[in-house]
């Protein structure tokens, strides 16, 4: 039962790094140096170098798996303080594991926000929400918009502040899967990709680095203006149809990570969000057409 501490000289040096992701401060500790390199590559603008004045929200570690597996298919495990929610991953995928682990950490704890499962982009202070649904191609679309002048607020979370009713940025790398990687490479020469992690649970995954401007402006919230439920369908012409507010409300309440948990606060935040946005569903096959259409969305008559 008791596992003895291994002698210190056999442990690889542990590295520590603190960085901000939107409103949160992350403290990462890991013996896997490759992860720290990737964190520096991805979050260069938000690494915390001087002592901070705010507490850490997420103390996370990525550890090597059990010793007997180190040579044959080495593994990595994710830990949020004393909790380790996932099965071990292949050690090569450790950075993807860290990013998924942070998603999980935010979803179980950041209840100061209504957490929508959505990509969010901003233009002229107005936010566009792209809720995630199976087959929506939300990440690919978010990546394309971020490469065409929209500011990336988040690829995964719509952080709705129930008090100010604004959406807070949470700029992080966009994990693109399988064919989407090539689609985005072809879409823009400015796309900066990290390494491809082959055959993860979600297929081949590569992370698109968030634009420096997104990272530098991660304390600037935006007013919600548009909600578009995208749907990628091969061969389909671009089609946009308005959605009723009650339908949008119902779909977003199911799409949220913590709507039920937030009770009256969540209800009011979501009702107000839907009230202040124009809501559509949009079907597309051509990414350029869809990006162009998003730039011509009419704003709500306020």
């Amino acid at each position, binding site marked *: 039962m008791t596992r003895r501490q291994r002698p210190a000289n056999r442990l690889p040096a542990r590295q520590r790094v603190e960085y901000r992701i939107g*409103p949160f401060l992350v403290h990462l500790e890991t013996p896997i140096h490759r992860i720290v390199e990737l964190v520096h590559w991805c979050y260069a603008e938000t690494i915390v170098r001087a002592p901070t*004045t705010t507490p*850490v929200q997420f*103390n996370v570690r990525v550890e090597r798996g059990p010793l007997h597996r180190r040579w044959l298919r080495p593994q990595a495990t994710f830990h949020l*303080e*004393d909790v380790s929610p996932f099965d071990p991953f292949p050690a090569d995928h450790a950075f993807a594991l860290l990013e998924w682990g942070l998603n999980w950490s935010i979803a179980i704890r950041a209840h*100061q926000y209504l957490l929508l499962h959505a990509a969010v982009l901003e233009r002229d202070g107005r936010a566009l929400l792209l809720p995630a649904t199976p087959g929506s191609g939300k990440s690919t679309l978010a990546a394309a918009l971020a490469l065409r002048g929209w500011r990336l607020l988040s690829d995964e979370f719509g952080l709705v502040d129930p008090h100010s009713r604004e959406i807070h940025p949470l700029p992080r790398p966009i994990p693109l899967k399988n064919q989407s990687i090539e689609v985005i490479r072809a879409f823009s020469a400015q796309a900066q990709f990290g390494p491809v992690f082959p055959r993860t649970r979600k297929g081949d995954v590569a992370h698109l680095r968030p634009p420096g401007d997104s990272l530098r402006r991660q304390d600037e919230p935006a007013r919600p203006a548009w909600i578009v439920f995208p749907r990628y369908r091969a061969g389909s012409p671009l089609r946009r149809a308005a959605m009723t507010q009650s339908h949008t409300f119902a779909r977003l309440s199911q799409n949220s990570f913590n709507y039920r948990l937030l009770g009256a*606060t969540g209800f009011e935040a979501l009702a107000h969000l839907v009230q202040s946005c124009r809501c559509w569903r949009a079907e597309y096959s051509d990414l350029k057409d869809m990006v162009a259409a998003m730039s011509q969305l009419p704003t709500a008559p306020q």
Partner: protein
Amino acid sequence: MSLLLGVLRDPRVITQWTLPQWNRLLRETRAQGLSARLSWILEERDLQAACPPAALTELEAQRCIAALKQAQARLELRKLHKALAPLDIPIMLLKGAAYAQAGLRVARGRDFADLDILLPRERLEAAETALETAGWISETTNRYDQRYYRRWMHELPPLHHRTRSFEVDVHHALLPLTGRLRPDPSRIWAASRSLPDAPYRIPCPEDMLLHGAAQVFQDGEIAGQLGGLLDLHQLIGELSAQSGFWERLPVRAEALQLGRPLYYALHFSRALLDTRIPPEVLRAAQAHAPGPLNNRLMDLLVPRVLEPRYPARRPARFAAWLLYLRSHWLRMPPGLLTRHLLRKALRGGKP
């Protein structure tokens, strides 16, 4: 010492704190699942301004969890009442649901896993049938577990309604039938109060505290029960404001055979959380202290498992294991105990 224990003893300590201390407090508090309760305690003492804003935001953000559980418990109770009222079967609320419906401060931010109710033992079969008809299902299909509950326990196997996920624990006694201490449920019923604005009963203040004490120190495994000890600390603070509480408490404990758990509750709540208890009550409870050896052992073990550790150290696990054995020893005759532990081990559950 643990910073969380320090804050719970005297919340004003935070006014002196630096960032590293806050970081440690937050880690201890998250590990104990006490974020929301701490946020209320700080608010009651008007100390929010002394917290780093991000720390306060995080603590307060966890309040919604308990609030949802309380709403779900209210829904479940309304449904239970609809099923049992036609048969005139009264419902008594225990623990979290009782604290919440009675509007006690201890309920603020207090998460609970399931709804605990007490039904009169002689109406148990009628109640079971009515609940089954109304759609509640037993969560235990394993026949050994079913028998274990029915023959030896103070509650039915956990129930949940087929359209909802909320778990209901139906008790007919406060402590297991095989246990060494068996407070008579009819006395609890006789002293209970009806709620002014809801059709349920709650135990009288002394019984509420004694049941909490029995939960932590007689029925439970103690480890990870800092929340349970905090319940006792807050209940004592709030219930003792009623006149005559302290005079009635030791007498009541004696009558219900709960002198020993009361002794532990007062002793450890004072030792770890600095709870204010009149010296004459402590002296009266002392009469129920265990023998010197056992007492020394408890003094060694209990703080080890209750005190939040950062980082977690090993010996607490061993102390927790000893206390786990103790909780089972208190509940069951020895022969039965080995049999039960063996079955659990064979099924690959906890030790």
